[in-house]
C-alpha cells in the first residue's frame, strides 16, 4: 500500500494558515513578522525539501538493509498505524533531545532555531544537512519492530505536519486536558526560547507526555515571556550562511583541536563545549542564572 506524502498534501494549507496568521498579527499585534526573516525561513523550508530527498533515500536504503532482521511483520491495520505513530513520536523525542545535546546533530538542527521570530514561517525553517547526520538511526527501531517502510515514512510526515501549527504566538494556552497530553504552541514556545529557565526543555513532537515522563518538561510562565532564537543569534538573513554557519564553526574548532580527544568532544559534547570552558553551554548558562538569582 502506498500513501501520499503528508507534507506535500499539507503545503497549500501551510501557506493559507501563514497568510491568515500574518493578517491576524497585523490586526492584533499578537505575533511578529520581519519580511527578510520570513523569506529566509521559507527558503530554508524550500531547500530542505530538495536536500531532504537525499536524506529520505539514505533512510530507505538503511531500512531495506534492516528489513531481513525485523522481529515481526506488521501489516496495514489501524492498531499498527497507531503504534507506529506513537513509537515514531517517542523516537522523534530521542532524536530531538540528542539534537540539542550533541553538537554534531545541533550543527544541523540549529537552523530551525535560528530565527528570533516565532511564527508559522519558523516551522518551515528546516535544516539542509540531514545527510550529514545519522537521523536514520533514530527511526531504525521502527523497521526492526516490523512496521512497513511506507508506513514509517507516512507517520513521520504526519508528525512533521502536526508540528507546523504549534509555531505561533497567536494561540495562547489551550484547555488543560490538551496541554497535558499534546504538544501545543505554549509548550513549543518554551522549546524555542533562549531564556535560561526554558533552555533544553519540551523536546516533544506530537505528545508532550515524553517530556513529562523524562523530566524535560517546563511550562510557559506569564512572568517570563519567551525570547526566541539561539544563544548567539545570527547576523544574516542569507540562507546559505544560515544553513552552513554551525558546520563552519564546528570545522574551525576541529581544525584547531589539539588532540583526538578534544576533536571528539567538539563533535559529541553539548553545543558550547570548549577545552578551556571559555564558552557557555546551556548548562553553564543555567548555572550562572541560578547562582545570580540566588545571590539577589
Amino acid at each position, binding site marked *: 500500500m502506498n500513501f501520499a506524502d503528508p507534507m506535500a498534501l499539507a*503545503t497549500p494549507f501551510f501557506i493559507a494558515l501563514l497568510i491568515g496568521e*500574518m493578517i491576524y498579527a497585523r490586526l492584533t499585534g499578537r505575533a511578529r513578522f520581519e519580511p527578510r526573516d*520570513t523569506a529566509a525561513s521559507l527558503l530554508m523550508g524550500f531547500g530542505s525539501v530538495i536536500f531532504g530527498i537525499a536524506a529520505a533515500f539514505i533512510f530507505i536504503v538503511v531500512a531495506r538493509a534492516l528489513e531481513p532482521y525485523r522481529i515481526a511483520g506488521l501489516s496495514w491495520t489501524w492498531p499498527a498505524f497507531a503504534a507506529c505513530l506513537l513509537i515514531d513520536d517517542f523516537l522523534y523525542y530521542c532524536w530531538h533531545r540528542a539534537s540539542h545535546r550533541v553538537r554534531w546533530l545541533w550543527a544541523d538542527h540549529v537552523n530551525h532555531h535560528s530565527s528570533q521570530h516565532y511564527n508559522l514561517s519558523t516551522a518551515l525553517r528546516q535544516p539542509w544537512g540531514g545527510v550529514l547526520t545519522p537521523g536514520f538511526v533514530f527511526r531504525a527501531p521502527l523497521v526492526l519492530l516490523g512496521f512497513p517502510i511506507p508506513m514509517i515514512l507516512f507517520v513521520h510526515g504526519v508528525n512533521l505536519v502536526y508540528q507546523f501549527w504549534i509555531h505561533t504566538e497567536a494561540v495562547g494556552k489551550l484547555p488543560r486536558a490538551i496541554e497535558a497530553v499534546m504538544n501545543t504552541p505554549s509548550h513549543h514556545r518554551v522549546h524555542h526560547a533562549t531564556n*535560561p529557565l526554558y533552555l533544553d526543555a519540551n523536546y516533544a513532537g506530537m505528545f508532550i507526555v515524553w517530556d513529562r515522563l523524562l523530566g524535560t518538561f517546563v511550562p510557559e510562565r506569564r512572568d517570563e515571556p519567551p525570547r526566541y532564537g539561539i544563544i548567539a*543569534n545570527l*547576523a544574516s538573513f542569507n540562507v546559505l*550562511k544560515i544553513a552552513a554557519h554551525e558546520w*563552519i564553526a564546528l570545522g574551525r574548532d576541529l581544525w584547531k583541536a589539539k588532540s583526538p580527544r578534544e576533536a571528539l568532544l567538539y563533535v559529541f559534547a553539548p553545543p558550547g563545549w570548549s577545552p578551556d570552558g571559555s564558552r557557555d553551554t546551556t548548562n553553564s548558562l543555567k548555572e550562572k*542564572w541560578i547562582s545570580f538569582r540566588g545571590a539577589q
Partner: protein
Amino acid sequence: MNLPYLLASLGGVALVVALSALLFGVRRARIASAADVEVYLTKILPVFRGQTIALGADGRAGLARNEFDAGVYLVVAHGDGLVARKLTPALLRTVERRGDVLSLRLADFTLPRIALALGDQTVRWQGILSQAAAR
C-alpha cells in the same frame, strides 16, 4: 516530488514574502541610546551590569563592558532586532583604528567584520578591545 510542485512552492514563498512586506514593511532596528544596549544585554545575559557603553554614530552597533564578568560585548542591529557577541580572544581577530572609526574583524561566519565610528571614545575603546583580544 515534481517540477510543478516545486514551482508552486516557490510561488507560495514569493506570495507570502510579498504580503509580509506589504503588511509589516521592512523595519531596521536602531541603537539610539546606551539604554538600548543595556536593556538588550540585561535581557539576554544571565547577569549584566553596564559599566561602560559606547555607540556607533550610525546607530547600527554599540559596545559594552559587563561589570559582572569584565566581558566586552558587541551589540549589532540586525533586521528589526539586535544580536550580541561576547568579544573573546577566540572571536575577536583584529581591531584597527582609522581616525575615529574602529574596524573589528571577527571569527564569526555571519558577522565577519563591523565598523564603529565612536568619536572621542575611539582610542579608549581600542585599548579595551585590544585587552579583550589578548586576554
